[in-house]
């Protein structure tokens, strides 16, 4: 094996490790939503190639109001689905679309785009 081959092999394997760690094993950043005096928890989510924030921590048993603002026209992100709540919203580009859910029990509730390419989750505690 030449030196170049060894370098490429090691670098490649290192990159693989990094990718696996970054996408699968690293802790995602969580955004904790506070509860307003009215008892409503409100989050604003930007939709552009993904959801940001995409991990939203809320308090269980209280209604959560999610305001999606889709800042792109790519059809991929047109719909947002909350399969656990059987709710969906069609996101009109460059407009805020509001959706309300109430996670009654603590747990993780995923949401995603219509094709299942973009993911996010609500963690109720």
């Amino acid at each position, binding site marked *: *094996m030449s030196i170049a*081959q060894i370098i*490429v*092999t090691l670098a*490649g*394997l290192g*990159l*693989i490790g990094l*990718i*696996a760690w*970054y*996408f*699968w094993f*690293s802790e*995602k950043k969580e955004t904790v939503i506070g509860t*307003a*005096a*009215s*008892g*409503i928890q409100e989050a604003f989510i930007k939709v*552009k*190639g*993904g*959801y*940001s924030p*995409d991990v939203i921590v809320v308090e269980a048993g209280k*209604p959560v*109001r999610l305001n999606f603002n889709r800042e*792109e*026209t*790519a*059809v*991929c992100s*047109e*719909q947002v*689905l*909350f*399969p656990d709540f*059987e*709710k*969906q919203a*069609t996101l*009109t*580009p460059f*407009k805020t*679309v*509001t959706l*309300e859910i*109430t996670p009654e029990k603590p747990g993780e509730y995923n949401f*995603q785009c*219509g*094709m*299942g*390419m*973009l*993911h*996010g989750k609500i963690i109720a505690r």
Partner: protein
Amino acid sequence: MTKDPVCGMSVDESTEFQSEFEGKKFFFCSAACKSKFDAEPGKYAEAHKEQFPAAQLKKATATSHADGTQNLKLPIIGMHCSTCAVTIEKTVGKLAGVGQVHVNIATNDAFVEYDPSRVSAKEISESIGSAGYRVGRETLKLGIGGMYCASCVTKIEDGLKRIPGVLTSSVDLASESAIIEYVPAVVQIKPIKDVVEKLGYKTFDTIPPRDGIEGEEMDETQKAHQQEYKSLMRKFIFAAVVSVPVVFFSYPTIFGIMSFMKVGTSSFEIVSIAMAAATLAVMAYSGAQFFTSAVAAFRSRSANMNTLVASGVSAAWLYSTVAVLFPSVFPSKTLAGEFYDVVAVVIALVILGMALEVRAKGKSSEAIKKLIGLQAKTARVVRDGKETDIPMEEVVLDDIIIVRPGEKIPVDGIVTDGASSVDEAMITGEPLPVEKGAGDEVIGGTINKTGSFRFKATKVGKDTALAQIINMVQQAQSSKAPIARTVDKVASYFAPAVIITGILAFIVWFDFGPQPALVYALIVFVATLVIACPCALGIATPISLMVGVGKGAENGILIRSGSALETAQKLNAIVLDKTGTITKGKPALTDVVTVNGFKEDEILSLAASVEKASEHPLAEAIVNGAQDRKVKTTDTESFNAIPGKGVEAKVTGKHVLLGNLKLMKQFSIDSAALDQKVGQLAEDGKTPMYVAVDKKLAGLVAVADTVKEDSKVAVAQLQKMGLEVVMLTGDNERTAKAVARQVGITRVFADVLPEDKAHNVQKIQMEGKKVAMVGDGINDAPALAQADVGLAIGTGTDVAIEASDITLIKGNLSGVVAAIDVSRATMKNIHQNLFGAFFYNILGIPIAAGLLFPFFGILLSPMIAGAAMAFSSVTVVTNANRLRAYKLKLQ
């Protein structure tokens, strides 16, 4: 006002449709009614003598009291619990000038008594807002003419704000319009316009900018789709145009320009740099979304199709550009290859694929668009005795609405006068028009065919059957079939896994591949990234679900969720409730038997005349039976009900007895001649009654709950589909078996108490079967919930039946066949899609990684990989759209 003698509708005497008959004037609602009358005036004039009482009108708006306080009804959005109601009551109650506040959590309405001189509707609405809730409101965009200065603006704004029910108003001088937010339950558009006009300005209608209403959003989505398609096509054309020269110069050997493109010559260098610049432009313009999306995804620690395409083409471009600018970096000249063609062609193809997908996806959601399109825009209501056209949103409960021939019925209601036939196919799937008369239910969104009528609104806004259907279909389309959850798990690991595979392929080719190893390694890396299509995988289930659920809705089958659909195709047994499901649920006359020289018509006439005076449910069947057979009835002279036995009456001088054996015995009538026949009829599940005339046995009339026309065929169809059909009924075994025999069911559970129905469903489940239960949704709710799939047979506008997984709007068994059929077809389609997508990726990725090279010398060009990827997701969407053309059984 007078009545149209043909259709019975109230008409104004000023109408142009008039006729004279026997010196009397008659008025009509339309030319159609007038021509009918002119054809046989005698018939209608006679009927006209019967006068109908005028319908009472009731208004539901804000009411003023003598002391100046007003009552306000505000629809509240965002209430989830009873404490919410208390919160609102407390918050609003604190406001000065507010009297009583009552919030109804069930209807989501707040009733506020307030003094408009001390507090405004806007302040009340704001205080509700501060409590964390919203007030249901409409936005009106009103064109205003005659404004010249800024003071006009304030004048109009002030005037508008003083109207109770108007929350905000903003007048724009430049666009000559006002945006007004108002509560539709309190104030209508007309008074708002009046106020503006009273101030001395002109008003005209503009298109209302309604936010948050599904129908409008759908249109915007459609518009967005079109724009996206156009923009993608522009991007594709740019990439394609650039691709042509880039491909031409990238293959100098093929196009015979080898000498011109010799490495190291100045012409080669210039062309190469030009290609680098051109493809960079393609990446920046056509491919921009891959990069922005990839970056966004990367930030949220996820990867998707865009990540793959972006990394693939960037790798190809960077490598090529390094080779052009710094060829000395590479140890040998053969390594300094260029892949600009890959960059341009892959981007062009993937973008084209996306454009085609946008097109195809528009079709997939056509069913729901059609449903939304069914909603009427305006309604012609009678208010204060006048007919006015108002927007749909302003129709309130108990409004009297007028519908003319060819018009759409705006909301659900009950016909008060007039008659017509109505095309309900779009809601129920029933192909033939349905006759409607006073007291009949009409469904919003259906089309009135022939006559005119008035009806009272019983369900408006979000409560109408159509709104609920739309809601249910959207809910189902957003739910997930259990199979999709598995797919999602795979999909979430997919994109990073592909990148890892690409890197592994790169290493293997670099270490063990033929020379030039670096070039091969790069080709397989790019091809692997580009060929993988997580999109096809992700879209496989939801797109078919969307088309399938929509297909069901078009045929009057409402599927509540993806899991209901998935379970429905796995069924082994189907339990049918007898009454109302297999049978009509209403007894009808079936047999007339005669003895001792009596005639059939004679007996039936006497029996029906007697029963006309009776209130027994079986009596109605006999009277209707006589009417159907065109047998005349007369009035009884005396009538005496003998409890538990029957009736005794005098008809046209004859003494008539009608009842059971006990009645015959009581009057010592010899019934032996008919005893055998009675036994036979009872065996068939019918209820026979003896008829005796002047103390002499005359014959029998028998009634029974008859089987629906399509039940037998539907049961046979279900059995053919491999389902065990079971009948469940509270009736006695003899009647149950008789009905079962008629429709071809062998397994019967009879004498089942209503509360035991669920238990019996469970019994069949214990046999290891997946069981569907078909029932009416009210009495059968526990059984429907117990079953793996509960199918409720709906009646008219009552569509959102809680306990059911599937609701059939058209109340017969062929709907059950169609529901199972559509579920099976959809699941089959989903399986095809998933198989296709998995198969494609499982096959495509190794080939792109160069697995076939050592054996067959086959290596995939990244451009072919790009084409394959672009069309794999288009194929999935197209396959799902095939479902739209699927022909349902028995429909």
